[in-house]
């Protein structure tokens, strides 16, 4: 380490390469979160489908967004609930064989 950089350290100034590295990490993170509008739309559709198995939701007031800040980034999904879906006790897969049984199918 040179005298110059030692002095900088003593005066509490961060090395410029550390500044570079932090900026780089943040830039890469935001680059990767830069998703296409269609991707978010697809995700929203899938989420509605899954959530609807458990809750009755207001499909028109749903919002989905990626929020970024210096400290963290988050996927924010908000959906007003109208009521819990009480029919969910029997998983769809278990009902299927009954309908498929030969007795019912003709």
């Amino acid at each position: 380490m040179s005298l110059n950089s030692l002095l900088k350290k003593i005066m509490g100034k961060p090395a410029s390469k550390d500044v570079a590295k932090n900026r780089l990490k943040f830039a890469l993170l935001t680059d990767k979160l830069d998703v296409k509008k269609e991707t978010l739309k697809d995700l929203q559709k899938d989420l509605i489908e899954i959530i609807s198995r458990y809750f009755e939701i207001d499909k028109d007031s749903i919002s989905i967004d990626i929020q970024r800040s210096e400290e963290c980034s988050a996927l924010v999904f908000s959906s007003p609930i109208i009521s819990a879906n009480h029919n969910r006790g029997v998983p769809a897969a278990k009902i299927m064989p009954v309908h498929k049984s030969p007795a019912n199918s003709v």
Partner: protein
Amino acid sequence: MDGKIIVVTSGKGGVGKTTITASIGAALALQGKRVAVVDMDIGLRNLDVVMGLENRIVFNIVDIIQGRCKIKQAAIKDRRIDNLYLIPASQSDDKNAIKPENMVWLCGKMRKEFDITLLDCPAGIEQGFRNSIVAADEAVVVCTPEVSAVRDADRIIGLLYAQSITPKLVVNRIVPKMVENGDMLSHEDVVEVLSVDLLGLIEMDEYVVVSTNTGTPLVLQEESKAGKALRRIALRLDGHPDLPIENPMIQKTFWKKLSSKFSRKN
């Protein structure tokens, strides 16, 4: 056995792709391989002047693809190094003159004629880049220790993985004194951020400029540190993957060595 196609790419321009393609090509040919270097920068060719072969161009890559000549007719033999050939880019066509399926065909032919074909990829991620990676077996990603170059390298690495190519990284234009002073990203920083395998480290070297001026191979300059690093990169790339990577360092005087020993743990 079929030859390999290796693309040298970066995203950002001016980081050393052309210099590195010419040098690795020369080093591999000196190691006894039959090598072709291909300029993929249609409309903006450069590899020919870096290699000092600009006066000998008759046909180019677009001529091959459009059937106006054979590969053998377009390939220019190097003046100094046996077994080294250049396929120049066309200067008058635009990037759309070549399509990915043309490259698949051409690379198939190149594999039969050469042990190693190096593709000097243009900057950017458009057609020229797509053409360069479509038939590549391996990729060398070049970056400099700067925020913009590393960021672009990250993007390129993602696109290469999407093509099932595992890239290897070369960090070029390292200034050891600046790294030591904390004013330049170290190669460790770069590798940590990109999480990719390292192929080699090249320092900033005046010999690069001199050899480009004269169109002579950098790897023939015994005293050039960049030339030496590139010879090692060529070895690691072909047949000697375990050769240790040399870390560029300041030529230290006795007193500097002593003082850095004392301040090491800072």
